[in-house]
């Protein structure tokens, strides 16, 4: 008799502990969920279509042969290749995420952080970068205005 009540008590206790555990987990989840959602940044807002370069940016492009422009929260390298065509690549080096630059004299894209080199199509020539740079569509109109479309070409 006594042992059976003890056993019942025991199962009741372990059931209580189980519920307690579930409750604590649920509580933790209900507290953490809003906090995690709160901390997750919102996607950066901005125009999703093609982005036209400002006059200043075009001026820099003409002078330096390249310019880094923000497009939808991404850094994009816009440069003039030796054939005077305007082209665009992702400016974020695939190695450690430094911003790359165009070296007009050598016609390469170069990352100063760890000496990564890419060709004008974004393919890795030398150095540690594991992947090529993504290509983007860039177009120059008759008036000299430059438009970058944030889609891989």
């Amino acid at each position, binding site marked *: 008799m006594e042992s059976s009540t003890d056993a019942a008590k025991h199962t009741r206790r372990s059931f209580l502990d189980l519920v307690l555990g579930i409750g604590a987990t649920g*509580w933790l989840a209900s507290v953490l969920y*809003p*906090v995690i*959602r*709160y*901390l*997750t940044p*919102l996607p950066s807002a901005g125009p999703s279509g093609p982005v036209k370069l400002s006059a200043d940016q075009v001026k820099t492009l003409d002078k330096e042969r390249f310019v880094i422009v923000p497009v939808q929260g991404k850094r994009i390298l816009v440069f003039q290749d030796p054939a005077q065509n305007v082209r665009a690549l992702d400016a974020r080096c695939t190695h450690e995420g430094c911003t790359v630059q165009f070296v007009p004299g050598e016609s390469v894209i170069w990352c100063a952080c760890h000496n990564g080199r890419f060709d004008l199509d974004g393919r890795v020539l030398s150095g540690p970068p594991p992947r090529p740079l993504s290509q983007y569509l860039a177009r120059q109109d008759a008036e000299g205005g430059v438009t970058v479309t944030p889609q891989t070409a």
Partner: protein
Amino acid sequence: MSATAPRSGLFGWLDERYGISPLIEFLRHKEVPIGAHPMVWYYLGGMTLFFFVVQIITGVLLLMYYQPGEATSYESIRYIATKVPFGWLIRAIHCWSAHLMIMSLVVHMFSTMLLKAYRPPRELTWLTGFGLFGIALGFGFSGYLLPWNELSYFATAVGTDSVKSVPVIGHWLLLVMRGGEDVSINTLYRFFAGHVVILPLICAGLISVHLLVIQRQGMAPPIHGETARGMPFFPNFALRDLLLWLVCLTTLAMLAVLLPYGPGLPGMEWELGSKANPLAPAYPGIKPEWYFLWIYQLLKEFPAHLLGMEGPEVCLLVVSLLMGVWAVIPWLDRTAQRGRHSPGFTDLGFAVIYFLTFLTLKAADLGVAETPTNDAETAVVATFCAYITLGVAVVATLTRVLVYHHRWFVLSAAALAHIALHGLLGWSYLTVGAVVAVVTAVVLVASGQLRTGAEAGVES
């Protein structure tokens, strides 16, 4: 499971190095006195601490989006409240928790006062607690400005203005607080630094001392506590604390979701409204937060000039004196020092409660639909608030007489007489106050009770 036996695992590893076992042992034997009076008073400190922890967590979360600055403060808070997922919740909890923290703190302080828990050897607990009360008010005041909206701007302008009444260094203090002659974005930078760095540091120190001395000495037993039973602090009391915190958290969540901008009571709402514009004229109905309302009202009761000084200066002097007396109560209450009931100080506690209640209610403009603009309406407010306060006092007094067998009511009677003469008969608040104070003093001296601290009073 003996605590003295060496244990393996992480606990053993830690215990070996830091000697945790004696601490556990200490906690195991620590007891919370129960039986002589309702235990509820022992939970208030823990509750305040819980709300403070919530403040730290939500405060840090808000910091991740808040950008102090002329063009960003208001906008970032707006962004948090409207765009960030659950940003509204974090902000609402931060605001609600702030108010609930100060509420539980105030109740905690008065329960400590009325139960004479400040008596030796716990003077330092009272003093640090008093300091924490001041810090909490500082938190509220500095945090109020951070959204940089119209309401907070004017409330801060009024609030900081009273600082100039401090003798000699008043103007300098005002400049330091505001970062210039007027409330500007410089003020916000200073308040921001105070709210998120300076005050939390001081607060952490004070809370550490406060908790340390409580843990060292245990909770104050009732004044005739020899007979009280004890409850183990750990795990019994601690688990109860935890249970209460869960209830508090649930309450917080409900309030934050259902009333995200506060209950809409005077001094207790945080709707963002429009951005602060230093060039816009002030509008009627601007009030500080509810825990400052009594000072705000007291300032209004003082005339422009009194006793050859400016009214606000005198008012600030009076408030400082009251605060000073309040801080050193453990040393004033000689009777409680000897471990005996001090009905005089119990009654003082009630008198202070009536005093604060009336002023707070009056500042909230209870009894009229809109902010009063003439003397007649102000009189209506005074009468209405006097009735409420007197009603509360009647209930409190009946309880004291019937349940607690209190017999000493000189100070609370004086406070009520003050309220009644002002509110019901329309006499000047200050004049009545002075007359009542003098009469009370005469009565006390004449009956020889001032010195003896009402030792002759009937002990319950």
